[in-house]
Structures are given as C-alpha cells and as structure tokens.
C-alpha cells in the first residue's frame, strides 16, 4: 500500500462515512476509478465500518420491489437495445421530430441514430457534473498511454483538487482532454482521454459490461460532419490507444460528442453505426500535469 496524503485518507474516510457533498462524492468516485490503491483504501474503510450495519434492523421491502428488479434486469440484458428516455429533455420537441429524415440507408438505422443523437447531446451535457469532477483526476495521468499496463507505476501523486487546485501549468504543457462515456448519467463505462498536441487518444474501459459476440465501437459526432465517424473498435482490452483523431480538425475533436455503439464482432462493416449510442460524453479540458 502506498502512502497517501492525509487529505486522501480523509477523503476516503468521509466518503464511506457519507458526509461528503455531492460534488466531493463525485470526486472521490473519480479518483477510485483512476487509482486502484485509493479504491482499495476506500474498500478497507467500507469493510471496517460495514460492521456497524449489523446493528441496523432488517425491514422487509414490499413484494413489488422484486417484480421491478426482475423487469429491470430483463431489460438491461441486451445493451444494444435503445437507451432509455433521458429524464429531462430541455429542448423543443421539434428538434426530436423525425420529419426532416436524413438519407435512408441500411434499414433506417441512420435515422434512428440521428434522432437519438440529439437527445444524447443533451445527455452529454448532463454528464458534465461528473466530468467536472474528473478535473481532479487528470493530475493522476492514470490513463495516459505511457501508463499502459506493463509500464512502471509512478509514485502516487493524486491531488485532491478541493484542497489544492492543480498548480498553474507551464506554458509548454499541451492541454489534455477527458470525456466520461456513460449511459444516462450512470456509472462511467469508458474514459476517453485525448492529448491536445498529438490528438492521440486512449480509451480506458472502466464499467462497460461484456457483450458476447459483439464489439463496442467508438464514434465521433460533430455538427461539422455530415455523419458519425468511426474511431474504431474499443473495449477489447482495458486500454485502447490510437492516433485516429489526428485526421480531424482540433476544433472538431474538442467540441464533438463521443458515442459508443454495440456492433457486430469486429465492428461496423460499412462505417455506419448500427445501434443507438449506448454510452456517450463530451471532452472537457483537463489540467495539464506539471509534475513530471
């Protein structure tokens, strides 16, 4: 176990105690995703304090709870199915109307995708709260390509942004971007990071379940492009690193929505998405690290 600062220990402790506010909780969860040692520390606290629950009396939940759980897991199984309606759509209904149908190809999947897209754009902005929490994370550089499995793990240099906002970066440091790809504000499925200078990207699979016989494919969706562009199959291993974004204009890259679909094994055969996005998110600029 590596040595953590007292701030980290306190963050883990107050996380399991439950006294952090919503933003701090998001922050702690983001650090847990990026730093296994921190996650292990949280689990230790959780286990120790879990003993207190022995004292909590059991209360039977009503029967319909199980019915709903059963229905939910039956729905959840095929992840390729349409995502659930987003809880709030803060845009005029007209924007969702399929009248201005784009090109009809491939059994209408494109149309579905385009409609979904509008909603997903809204969703992506809803994800910003969590994404903002990830600002604290980039300092870790935990998902930078040089830290791919096999590379030596660096000294832990997690910074708790609350206490210690990241130091002003040197002018030489290129901006780093990060997007949390998630479903409907749920747990992050993938974390996408983009190096501002090279536009190389890395995708780390964090919460996406397995899709037997299928592949996850990453897409770039931009107002400036007529259709989603494939960035290739991801998620086959924990990390996927690729230079595929280098071909795009930096402005397109930083403003795009990134979405993941479920495709046949090996990816879409025709360069077009065949499911609605199951996870999506937008990049935010993260603090470049100056610590190395």
């Amino acid at each position: 176990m590596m040595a953590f600062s007292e701030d980290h220990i306190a963050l883990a402790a107050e996380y399991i105690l439950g006294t952090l506010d919503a933003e701090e909780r998001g922050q702690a969860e983001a650090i847990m995703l990026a730093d296994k040692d921190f996650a292990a520390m949280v689990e230790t606290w959780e286990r120790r304090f879990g003993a207190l629950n022995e004292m909590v009396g059991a209360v039977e939940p009503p029967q319909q709870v199980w019915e709903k759980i059963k229905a939910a897991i039956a729905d959840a199984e095929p992840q390729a199915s349409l995502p659930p309606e987003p809880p709030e759509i803060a845009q005029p209904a007209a924007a969702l109307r399929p009248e201005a149908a784009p090109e009809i190809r491939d059994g209408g999947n494109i149309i579905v995708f385009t409609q979904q897209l509008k909603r997903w754009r809204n969703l992506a902005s809803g994800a910003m709260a969590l994404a903002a929490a990830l600002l604290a994370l980039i300092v870790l550089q935990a998902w930078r390509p040089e830290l791919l499995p096999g590379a030596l793990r660096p000294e832990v240099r997690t910074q708790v942004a609350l206490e210690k906002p990241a130091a002003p970066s040197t002018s030489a440091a290129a901006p780093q971007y990060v997007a949390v790809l998630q479903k409907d504000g749920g747990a992050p499925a993938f974390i996408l990071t983009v190096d501002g200078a090279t536009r190389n990207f890395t995708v780390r699979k964090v919460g996406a379940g397995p899709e037997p016989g299928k592949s996850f494919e990453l897409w770039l969706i931009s107002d400036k492009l007529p259709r989603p562009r494939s960035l290739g199959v991801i998620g086959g291993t924990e990390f996927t690193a690729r230079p595929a974004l280098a071909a795009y204009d930096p402005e397109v890259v930083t403003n795009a929505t990134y979405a993941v679909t479920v495709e046949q094994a090996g990816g879409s055969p025709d360069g077009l998405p065949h499911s609605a996005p199951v996870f999506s998110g937008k990049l935010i600029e993260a603090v470049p690290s100056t610590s190395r």
Partner: protein
Amino acid sequence: MLTPSELVWLIAAVAKGDQTAFERLYEATRAKLFGVVLRILRRQDLAEEVIQEAYVRIWNGAAQFNPALSSPITWMVSVARNRAIDVVRKRSEASIEEEPSAMEVAADSPDPLARREMTEDLKRLLECIGRLEPDRQKLILLAYYNGWSREQLAAKFETPVNTIKTWLRRGMMEIRECLGL
C-alpha cells in the same frame, strides 16, 4: 440468513447470469439492505427506488465482486448505502430545510446498544469509536447510520459547519489510528 460462503457462491452464479441464484441472493439480503437505506432515506418510496437500483447494480456488478477484499454482505450493503447517500446529498442540495421533520424522527441516535451477538469486527470498531469524546462518537454514528450531511450535523450539534468538518476529519483519523489502518 445464508452463510458468507453461500452468498459468495450465489454472487459467482449471478455473475454468470443465473437468475435463480439472483432471486435467492435477493431473498437472503433484501431486508438488511432495505433496513439500511430506509434508515437513511426515511421515505418508503425513495427507499424502494434505491433498493431496486442497488440490486440492478449488484446484478450488473457481480463479476467485479472480489471475495478476497470484501464480504458479500458488506459489498451489497455498500452498493445500496452509497446509492442512498447519493440520493440524500442530491436532494439536500436542492433544499436542506425541506424536511425538518425528518430530522426530528432521526434525532435519536442509532441503537448500537441492542447488543445481540456482535462480531469481533464490530466490537473492535465500537471500541475505537468509544475512545472519542461522547459528542464525537455521536457525530460519527449519526453520520454513518442516518446519512446526515455536515449541515444537518451542524444544526443538530449547534456548531458551525466548518467545526463539524474538523471534528469529522479528526474523529476518523483517530479511529484509523486505533484500528491500525
């Protein structure tokens, strides 16, 4: 209640998509999880929602459960409790004053003294909590059992939020030292 090893076995089956095992797991654990979240949420409807979500997460996350790191019931309770805390934190941001009555109901400190058989883990933890000053003991237990925010604790203890923050932090650090973490 099933034994921990039976629960581990069930979770392993659930990870492979075994719905019958999932139903048995639910039956064995639902009342404990519901008790924990109801204590925090204090509203039947919210507690039902949270418990549903928690079991869906358990279904989806069963493969990530590591019996070497955690006990099955601790893991499952944590999933549910974390969801409950998320919900109360998000609600309290909208309006902290919304439900003063909820605080009254909860103002009695939890009842850790219904001493039945306590596990060694619990005895050890209570011993460490017991070394804190009485107010701090109460603070930690109210936070854990009732899911109270710092603001709610500040109101209860008639103390500024920043002081509560310091107390919580120091209290947890002392407990850590006592436990040898």
